[in-house]
């Protein structure tokens, strides 16, 4: 455990992000806790998958890691150094994003050369001739022919555009890549090419990824560790085998149950889960998950669970707390 902490290239310590939002036209601004006391560490060379429902705070977490949002409290450390103490440009050299939508994240008026070489120019790396060479090199790595340099995003397919976005992210040779739904907008035939590419780049350059996705099969395929988020909190974290083969938290179990594998005859599973996602401005008492949990007890309504270590990671659920009345009753 402490060994792992030492190797962490990226670490979050008790990070909370609160937005102030207005409800209705004349409503008073109320706090919305998008990320709630999250501690996570990203060991070098690993792929941390981050999963959870829409609105649970995944993108907010990604933005905090990229330095695009400041946490309301807590610390973000890159190689053991606080992110605030590092200047934005040097941070951008080490951490780069790949976002969901390859259509809107590329400037339609810039050529592919301009788009991919922009980070070099911003960081003042080398001269015109070097840029040309570097762009060719990185395009080759992501599997695009050099002739696309003079074309524009509108002339490319979705998969090609996402490769351009990846080339742009990699040209500064970052250590960490934050991928926020990098394949959600793509067809499966394109998705598999991008997933293979991300895997190859990781092996070749020792990259570390945070990989956010709704698609659990994809996360299972690519990730080495997985964190499950619910209403701003990490409710379970484990290595990939621990999570997919021995899920503990009832929410994780419901997520895994919802995965529709292409196997006919199995029908659509019953998730045993209420459908109502709670209002983040007015989160449920006790365990935030209790209104939808099939295992809910009175205790869950009143008391928030604490983070408990498991052999593969940790979980926040009373079911696994030897001190909780639920487990005590069971033992008795």
């Amino acid at each position, binding site marked *: 455990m402490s060994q792992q902490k030492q190797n962490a290239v990226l670490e979050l310590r008790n990070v909370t992000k609160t937005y102030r939002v207005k409800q209705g036209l004349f409503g008073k601004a109320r706090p919305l806790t998008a990320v709630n006391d999250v501690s996570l560490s990203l060991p070098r060379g690993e792929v941390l998958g981050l999963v959870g429902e829409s609105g649970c705070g995944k993108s907010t977490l990604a933005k905090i890691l990229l330095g695009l949002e400041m946490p309301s409290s807590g610390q973000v450390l890159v190689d053991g150094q606080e992110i605030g103490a590092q200047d934005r440009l040097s941070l951008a050299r080490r951490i780069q994003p790949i976002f969901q939508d390859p259509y809107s994240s590329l400037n339609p008026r810039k050529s592919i050369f301009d788009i991919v070489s922009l980070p070099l120019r911003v960081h003042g790396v080398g001269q015109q001739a070097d840029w040309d060479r570097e762009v060719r090199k990185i395009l080759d790595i992501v599997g695009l022919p050099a002739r696309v340099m003079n074309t524009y995003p509108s002339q490319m397919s979705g998969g090609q555009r996402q490769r351009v976005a990846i080339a742009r992210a990699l040209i500064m040779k970052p250590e960490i890549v934050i991928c926020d739904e990098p394949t959600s907008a793509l067809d*499966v*035939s394109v998705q*598999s090419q991008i997933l293979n590419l991300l895997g190859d780049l990781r092996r070749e350059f020792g990259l570390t990824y945070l990989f956010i996705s709704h698609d659990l099969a994809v996360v299972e395929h690519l990730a080495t560790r997985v964190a499950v988020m619910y209403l701003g909190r990490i409710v379970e974290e484990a290595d990939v085998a621990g999570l997919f083969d021995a899920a503990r938290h009832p929410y994780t179990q419901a997520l895994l149950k919802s995965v529709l594998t*292409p196997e006919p005859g199995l029908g659509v599973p019953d998730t045993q889960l209420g*459908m109502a996602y709670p209002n983040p401005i007015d989160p449920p008492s006790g365990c935030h998950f209790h209104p939808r949990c099939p295992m809910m007890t009175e205790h869950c309504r009143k008391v928030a669970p604490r983070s408990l270590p498991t052999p593969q990671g940790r979980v926040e659920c009373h079911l696994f707390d030897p001190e909780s009345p639920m487990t005590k009753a069971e033992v008795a």
Partner: protein
Amino acid sequence: MDKPLLSVRNLTIDIPVGGGTLHAVRGIDFDLNRGETLCIVGESGSGKSLTSLALMGLLGKNIRRSADRMDFDGTDLITAGPRKMRALRGGRISMIFQEPMTSLNPAYTIGDQLTEALLLHRKVGREAARARAVELLEKVGITAAESRLSQYPHQLSGGLRQRVMIAMALMCEPELIIADEPTTALDVTIQAQILRLLYDLGREMNMAMILITHDLGVVARVADKVAVMYAGELVETGSAQEVFGAPAHPYTRGLLRCIPLPGKTERGSELGTIPGIVPSLIGDVEGCAFRTRCPHALPECRAEIPRRGAGEHLFRCVHPDGAVSAEDVPA
């Protein structure tokens, strides 16, 4: 066997574009019985949405549609006028669109829009219509359903709008629902719940459904029949068991190799790919459109492609077995 509820033969859609004619849908055939679910699966741009719009008579004015047959329970959809089509769409056929904002009117409340069709086509009272609306909103997992009725579409999140669309489609207990990517924008847990709901209601009301998606997992779990679409053609059709259990067309097999299968695909291993891109469908399209990406392409693939298969499991390929024997059987 009863006559099918919906029968389509040689549906063709042409769109005049700058450089000529885009042959977006190129002669597709299918039958759908009452209570059955047909899933149309295929890559972006393969013509899935156009096909559904053509059935509903909702194609743009510049788009040319032709067919040898388009029959809905005895009504000829090719010759049906706008008034007849409107009546069908409001009552016996309903549609869930890919982008909910295009079909929700921003100027009316959710309640107005939910009850409108019911009041118009079913002669029920306002109170009964509202009660039905609340019931369906609750069924699709919308809390405080009563108070949602007075809200406007822009006050709802994307996921909620999509669920309102689904509730709206069910209001009149249609005989046929055409749903274009109804759950793509939703979370996996909600997706499973909504699909289950559509599936259960389909059984309960003996409702037929055409479900358009590019998610092979969804297809396998809800389809009775599957149609795999590529570049405007149905390259393979059959029951879900047939298409997933013994995929015949090289494209279908290629698609299935692209997705990681939990418990089957080794974690972190290389996934299958389909290199290349869909060809342009502007101008004449000869032979098999998949040949430019097919590992088994032959010179003959440029010529007329025979239809093969037996029973309901049909495919188009020059190879008598769809080149199954040429590929390694996966362990």
